[in-house]
């Protein structure tokens, strides 16, 4: 049987290629595109834990991203605390805030939950715009360090270190998702997504497990926020707390395939280069055009294949298998919504 073995070999080769990439490709822009793919894939993977597996569609995940970015940056600026520690502090803040948000908001179901997360995101963004101590509407510049410093999470000489850090964060998010898939909590998340009343009738404390999914998702998202702050070296409420960021995270996951392990990565691998490409081709006014293209793509995918690119890939692999060309694709966790 070539199936699992072939898959493992292919996976190993891809990983090796990803590790070798910055050694072979030195063009900063190409590296930047890869870093952005990893970052968005990581954010979408974190979002997917709450939305894809547990079925609670959040359109407020920028809250946690922003909290990560602002916590580490504020600690660095006001107390010269290493962003690595700031990263953990940011994750902790995001987890605490997520639990406080979850308590009232998880009483709402379906669309109402999504709407409430949008409203909360807007409230928090407004709060940060008006909070002068942390930079207000002007935003915050991360103090530049020379020379590069690992302790201060700053590498201005080359993007190579950022590349590996982003890759490691993505691996962490995927690893957590994998562990969850195989755990009791993972089964409970999916049961809640499918039917929370039936889940409760089997003894699942629905509110508690939603909170757990929210906490894990928020904590991971915050790590991405700190990374972004240290990579871009400037944050403001518009760039790290906006609704459009929340929606983008959701789009990446939906395009790739919600509730699947690899879907968010696949979505990012398609969407990020597309966005970068259209931006370059269509010039400065291209922002709206990228969004038009995303929008068109999402509509296309949801009409043709609601399970996202993962479902499309599985179908293609299934066909290849029938022809004896590739590994069998057994849908495992993919919940192809009808």
């Amino acid at each position, binding site marked *: 049987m070539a199936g699992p073995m072939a898959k493992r070999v292919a996976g190993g080769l891809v990983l090796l290629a990803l590790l070798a990439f910055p050694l072979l490709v030195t063009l900063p822009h190409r590296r930047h595109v890869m870093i952005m793919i990893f970052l968005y894939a990581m954010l979408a993977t974190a979002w997917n834990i709450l939305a894809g597996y547990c079925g609670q569609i959040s359109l407020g995940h920028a809250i946690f991203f922003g909290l990560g970015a602002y916590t580490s940056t504020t600690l660095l600026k006001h107390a010269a605390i290493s962003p690595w520690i700031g990263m953990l502090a940011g994750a902790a803040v995001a987890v605490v805030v997520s639990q406080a948000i979850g308590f009232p908001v998880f009483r709402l179901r379906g669309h109402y939950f999504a709407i409430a997360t949008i409203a909360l995101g807007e409230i928090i963004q407004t709060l940060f715009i008006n909070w002068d101590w942390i930079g207000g509407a002007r935003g915050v510049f991360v103090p530049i360090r020379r020379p590069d410093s690992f302790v201060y999470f700053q590498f201005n000489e080359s993007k190579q270190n950022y590349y590996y850090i982003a890759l490691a964060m993505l691996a962490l998010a995927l690893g957590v998702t994998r562990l969850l898939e*195989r*755990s*009791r909590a993972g*089964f*409970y998340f*999916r*049961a809640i*997504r*499918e*039917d929370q*009343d*039936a*889940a*409760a*009738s*089997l*003894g*699942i*404390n*629905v509110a508690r497990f939603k909170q757990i999914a929210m906490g894990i998702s928020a904590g991971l998202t915050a790590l991405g926020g700190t990374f972004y702050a240290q990579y871009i070296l400037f944050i403001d409420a518009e760039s790290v707390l906006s609704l459009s960021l929340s929606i983008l995270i959701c789009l990446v996951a939906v395009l790739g395939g919600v*509730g699947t392990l690899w879907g968010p990565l696949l979505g990012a691998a398609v969407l990020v280069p597309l966005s970068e490409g259209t931006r370059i081709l269509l010039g400065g006014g291209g922002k709206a055009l990228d969004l038009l293209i995303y929008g068109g793509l999402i509509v296309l995918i949801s009409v043709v294949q609601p399970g996202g690119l993962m479902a499309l890939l599985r179908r293609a692999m299934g066909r290849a298998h029938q022809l004896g060309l590739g590994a069998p694709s057994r849908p495992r966790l993919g*919940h*192809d*919504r*009808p």
Partner: protein
Amino acid sequence: MSLLTLSGITKRFGGVVANQSISFGVAHGELVGIIGPNGAGKSTLFDVITGVTRADAGEVRLEERPLTGLRPDQVSRLGVGRTFQKLRPFQGMTVLENVTVGALQKCRDVNQARTEARVALEQVGLADKADAYARTLSTGQRKRLELARALATRPRLLLLDEVTGGVDQGSIPGLIRLVQDLHRAGMALVVIEHNMRVIMAIAQRIVALHLGAVIADGPPETVTRDRRVVEAYLGQAYT
């Protein structure tokens, strides 16, 4: 002492009285059938027992322990399993995964829970469907799936809402046998059922509801001859 005791359960929805001071008990190992026309308050009673809705008055006890005010998951963990009239399988999960969710209540290890789930599937005769997605099952198979899922939580009391409703004739004998086997193994069951042939075959005792109130409670032969039950539900004496 009874396993389940209902005393004076009253539940209103606006002006409609769904349950009107319902009182009866279920002994350990007993199989009680509940009959009554549509709207008699049967499913509402299950919802009150399992904490889905809260009664306006009255008390539910499991042995000594009051269930009033507990959430559905707490009631489940105390040993009350249920199925739903309107079936609610986890559509996007496989049959085995559905039942594993139930088994995880008592057994924290996923692999062990999966093994237990297979046993429950064997018990309801659905083992060959283990890897199929729940949404691909027929109604009869879904009934079995819900039963297996509830069984996997290892309940002391099982509430079954319409075992044979919407099921093809061919599957009915198998479902009857299944319920009888559970009863013989010592489980207490409360079964809502419209099919009189089924209820006569399985129940030791029947409680008849009409307009939210208990109108008869006793052995099947007595209840089915009761004048009020005949008028309200059966139309003619069931013999």
